[in-house]
């Protein structure tokens, strides 16, 4: 659905939108949600740096311990949480690859609450595929992909997978 060049353009646009909305990059902290939100957050910070001169701090926020579906699935390991400095009174931009039910983002908001009190929290996602189960929306969207629940969206990023691509598949099939 998205090629490497599309992803590059989309991230550049989102970087500009973030700067525009916040009138600069002064108080920004970008936090990616593991696994694939993290490299996206680092890239966005880099783009914002190209636009504004100084790149805002970027890190990662693991939400596993805050999920509401933990007891429904086998126990699993944790991702990395790496908060760059203090988030009190900053504008935190959460970055994730795919937004669907909104439950991950709810967990992220709970996790943030235990770390500090940002002035505002915004959300940037590469793909929004609808099917929300909670009153959550993204502030910055790379691409809206209205999909059916029988479809899957797979995001691959250079840093972890060796290539940048967003693919659409059918549940149960290997993509």
């Amino acid at each position, binding site marked *: 659905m998205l090629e490497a060049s599309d992803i590059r353009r989309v991230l550049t646009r989102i970087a500009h939108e973030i700067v525009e909305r916040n009138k600069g990059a002064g108080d920004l902290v970008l936090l990616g949600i593991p696994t694939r939100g993290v490299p996206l957050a680092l890239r966005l910070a880099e783009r914002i740096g190209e636009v504004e001169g100084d790149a805002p701090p970027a890190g990662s926020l693991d939400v596993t*311990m*805050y999920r509401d579906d*933990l007891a429904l*699935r086998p*126990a699993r390991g*944790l*991702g990395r*949480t790496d908060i760059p400095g203090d988030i009190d009174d900053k504008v935190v931009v959460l970055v994730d690859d795919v937004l669907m039910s909104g439950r991950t983002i709810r967990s992220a908001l709970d996790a943030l609450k*235990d770390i500090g009190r940002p002035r505002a929290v915004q959300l940037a996602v590469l793909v929004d595929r609808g099917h929300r189960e909670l009153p959550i929306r993204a502030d910055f969207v790379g691409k809206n992909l209205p999909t059916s629940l029988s479809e899957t969206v797979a995001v691959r990023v250079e840093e972890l997978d060796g290539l940048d691509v967003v693919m659409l598949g059918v549940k149960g099939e290997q993509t």
Partner: protein
Amino acid sequence: MKRHLLSAADLSRDDALLILDTAEELARLADRPIKKLPTLRGRTVVNLFYEDSTRTRTSFEAAAKRLSADVINFAAKGSSVSKGESLKDTALTLEAMGADAVVVRHHASGAPHRLANSGWIRGSVVNAGDGTHEHPTQALLDAFTMRRRLGSFDGRRVTIVGDILHSRVARSNVRLLHTLGAQVTLVAPPTLLPVGVATWPCAVSYDLDAELPKSDVVMMLRVQHERMNAAFFPSAREYSRRYGLDGLRFAAMPEHAIVMHPGPMNRGMEIAAEVADSPRSTIVEQVTNGVSVRMAVLYLLLSGSESAIGSTEETS
């Protein structure tokens, strides 16, 4: 379904590394203003301690509380156990209270296995030390401390010194460190080595001075006066002279080597005060790491629909 942690032998290499990696993430929590996670909210963890223990019990308690579990401390002294209640009836009582996990320390080797395999309770059983058998979470926190200080296990030489015969810490460490790829050497007087030690995956020596210069880790064990019901060595002074870690012996260790002790220690007996207080001693660090490691164990056993680690009901 896996759901208990009874022995270090239950853990595959992947299990053990998952616990250490999870503990590594949880250790970072200590830097945060709120050192608590909501993950085990509504779960009940019972600490069932038939033997005296300060650090293990408080460590499990802190770990469970940081994960928001409810903790019930059940010490044999001052409970109905002192009125003659059997392990079975105590277990049935805990089950009736809705215990999701029972952390058990017992003076009889095998008591946690009995608890896990009897069908008395549905929850997970975590062995917090049984007799002279095993103490798996101690071995995990020791491994965690070693990895933090030394980086990796491959080919590292770990020398465990002292009362191997009565030591559940040594037993668990030998198994776990072998799984993780370290080479373990046990050093003790022949009277303090168990029968069958030759079948353990480790080397054995009677000469501490020969082992020190090639050790990356020297783990000193406590001389357990309470289990010394026979003459295992002529005198405390002689033991200390041959197997105690004093300043001179400490100087014979490589520069990077660390000194560990599971505590509580007898200063001046198995370890000299100057060695215990040296920056290369990890004794206090081990206590801190204990909380992170036990959080990881409780999290991986209890948080999901099935445990990520440990043994099934029937085996081991």
